[in-house]
């Protein structure tokens, strides 16, 4: 029996009748009363994720709407900052384990505060399951009240939280947010039910943002961030919309608790975590920073993914590991695909069973690309992706040969070197008028800074267009020399956002 059970924030209607939320509010209040340089303070913990303390204008921490009133002094020593601050792992296979350790450390600090205030010793962080029944896609009401039941200010209330329509109505848009990635079966890699680069993310070293999102990070994680944060007045945005501000918003930790729950549920379905030493031992195995968290007793907890790879070893459990995602067997999915491409059902089943579940490995090849950078204006952008005749022939040959035991290519659309100044937006992407998917720009601004952790390369989005290409092939419409790609933002793009897409390309991936 685990010592700590994380329960739904929507218990007792998500109000302060839910004791987990009431004590969370009190614990947050106590942490917020501490100074920035206090390792037990709310502000210090937010900076562990990422911080913008030194900026002289928004999104600098000294220029955010209050509440909360965010301090920018006194700073901890440089040594302390280098050990703890700006650690969050994104666009990386370390995304799930780093955030799990972060939650455990924050939870320990809150619990210590709760106990000191007379609360339960077994208090655990609640999770916000936006995929729950009824109206649970909405933020729990306790986060929208300005006062606690005793009439004191509610530490869970944040002014800079604007919602997907930027009207102060805070909820998660479902779809595009979904549990579909729970059907993935590969942590890092790809197969017929797992889009590249896999459920948990691509192999990286210490990765404080920039690059390609893992599937869990892309959806629902990033979409929820920008939905909750949204856009504010005068080109500002909500705290949750930007990794350098997100840890200041108390809802952040309930969102990540749900992401952590989804990882635990994914494991509970029998899907394994990586076994490579470079994952188990963390970025220190490849010369990078160690994961470090300050604990309530003043110690520093240095941890690796191996230390947090299962909840049971941490003495934690969740009230429910249920996810509503429809179960798709990889072999069935591959068999369906092969039949669609013309294979006999029996051959398809055999071929699927032989190779449908395996990781396809890294073997991508460029098929085509547009001419050059595309600027995203208010109404969106359009790009013509010209296909190389010879490489396209490889794709069509592969699809045609799918009637034998040979597995067909998968195809991906890649939005490369996406850069800009404002993260609070989502892009709807379609190819030849067929919807491909929606990506959120969470992390865009920081990944675009030339003198920050990613050197200004921006973000790269990889989207699976295998079904669309298969359909074009089946309809004898893959003769075209180009694809029409349309990118439509969910919110109007301000000129100041300066969002550009370096290149739009198509890749094939042999099986």
């Amino acid at each position, binding site marked *: 029996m685990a010592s700590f059970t994380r329960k739904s924030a929507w218990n007792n209607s998500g109000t302060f009748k839910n004791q987990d939320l009431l004590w969370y509010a009190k614990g947050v209040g106590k942490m917020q009363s501490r100074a920035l340089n206090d390792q037990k303070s709310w502000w210090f913990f937010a900076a562990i994720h990422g911080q913008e303390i030194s900026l002289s204008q928004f999104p600098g921490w000294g220029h955010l709407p209050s509440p909360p009133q965010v301090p920018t002094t006194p700073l901890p020593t440089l040594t302390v900052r280098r050990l703890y601050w700006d650690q969050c792992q994104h666009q990386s296979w370390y995304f799930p384990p780093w955030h799990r350790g972060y939650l455990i450390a924050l939870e320990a600090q809150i619990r210590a505060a709760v106990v000191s205030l007379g609360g339960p010793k077994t208090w655990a962080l609640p999770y916000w399951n936006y995929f729950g029944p009824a109206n649970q896609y909405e933020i729990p009401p306790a986060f929208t009240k300005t006062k606690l039941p005793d009439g004191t200010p509610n530490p869970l209330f944040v002014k800079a939280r604007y919602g997907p329509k930027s009207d102060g109505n805070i909820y998660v848009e479902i779809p595009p947010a979904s549990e579909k990635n729970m059907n993935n079966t590969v942590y890092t890699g790809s197969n017929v039910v797992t889009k590249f680069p896999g459920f948990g993310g691509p192999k990286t070293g210490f990765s404080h943002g920039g690059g390609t999102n893992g599937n869990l990070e892309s959806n629902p994680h990033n979409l929820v961030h920008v939905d909750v944060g949204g856009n504010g007045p005068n080109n500002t945005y909500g705290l949750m919309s930007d990794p350098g501000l997100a840890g200041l918003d108390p809802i952040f930790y309930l969102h990540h608790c749900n992401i952590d729950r989804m990882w635990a549920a994914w494991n509970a379905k029998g899907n394994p975590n990586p076994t490579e030493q470079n994952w188990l031992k963390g970025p220190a195995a490849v*010369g990078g920073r160690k994961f470090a968290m300050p604990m309530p007793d003043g110690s520093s907890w240095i941890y690796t993914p191996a230390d947090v790879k299962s909840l049971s070893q941490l003495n934690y459990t969740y009230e429910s590991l249920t996810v509503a995602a429809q179960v798709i067997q990889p072999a069935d999915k591959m068999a369906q695909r092969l039949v669609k491409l013309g294979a006999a059902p029996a051959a398809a089943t055999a071929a699927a069973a032989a190779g449908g579940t395996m990781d396809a490995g*890294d073997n991508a090849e*460029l098929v085509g*690309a547009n001419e050059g950078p595309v600027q995203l204006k208010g109404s969106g952008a359009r790009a013509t992706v010209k296909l190389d005749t010879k*490489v396209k022939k490889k794709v069509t040959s592969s699809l045609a040969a799918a009637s034998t035991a040979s597995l067909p290519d998968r195809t*991906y659309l890649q939005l490369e070197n996406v850069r800009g100044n404002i993260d609070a937006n989502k892009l709807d992407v379609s190819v030849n008028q067929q919807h491909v998917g929606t990506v959120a720009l969470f992390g865009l601004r920081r990944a675009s800074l030339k*003198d920050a952790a990613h*050197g*200004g*390369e921006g973000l790269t989005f990889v989207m699976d267009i295998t079904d669309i290409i298969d359909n074009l092939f089946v309809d004898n419409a893959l003769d075209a020399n180009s694809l029409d790609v349309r990118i439509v933002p969910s919110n109007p793009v301000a000129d100041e956002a300066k969002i550009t897409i370096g290149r739009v390309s198509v890749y094939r991936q042999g099986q």
Partner: protein
Amino acid sequence: MTISPQERARIYIPILLISAIAWMMLLVNPGSIMTLAHCPVTDSGASAASFRMLLAMNPVSSLMAGWAVMLFAMMSPTLLAPIGHVVERSFKRRRARSVILFVIGYAVIWMAAGSVLLAAKLLLSLVAPQTYLPVVVVGLIAFVWQCSPIKQRCLNRGHNHRELAAFGIAADLDALRFGINHGAWCVGSCWALMLFPMLLSEGHFAAMAAVTFLMISERLEPPGPLSWRLSLRGKLMRIVVAQTRIRLHGLR
């Protein structure tokens, strides 16, 4: 999207082989291309006559050949990441061509920088012949440069792997331009480190090896904010130690 390890190896192994061959040449030093010849006239101080004599004893072609060998030996391993980017973003049949164009762009910038650094070396050998003063001064400049925000800016820009056109002349020009840009930031980052071993009268092979280790290591560090900072840039050493431990542990 990423290419297969086998395809990556097909590109990386030749690059590392070129580096290894160049290191062998540095070790053998054929035709004394890596060392500056002196005589009493050139050691007598700065004058037009002594400069002419120095050039006669050390032809520009020989100096530039030595510089090119040094460049390929020391810099090739630092180019694996940008070349990997060129390979991944190019059509398969264009990969070799794009890589060559990238290397040409990169090498042109470094050869131009090399001519300046070699001129500086000649000048210093005339102004302060047979003394350690130039080594000490350049060593100090290199140290200050290493700690400076300008150095960090150059390193950061070296991590910015830009978008590349896929088709036709635009793809060729982009690969060339990427090489030139990368070369320029690389010169900004490493000029002082490259000059330092050139001024040593003894032990410059060991110094070049140490500088190469440092340059590879600092490229492996992630980009960061601009500030004055004393950093050992020891990432390569940390990787070697961590991976050795992992493998030794696996053997137990």
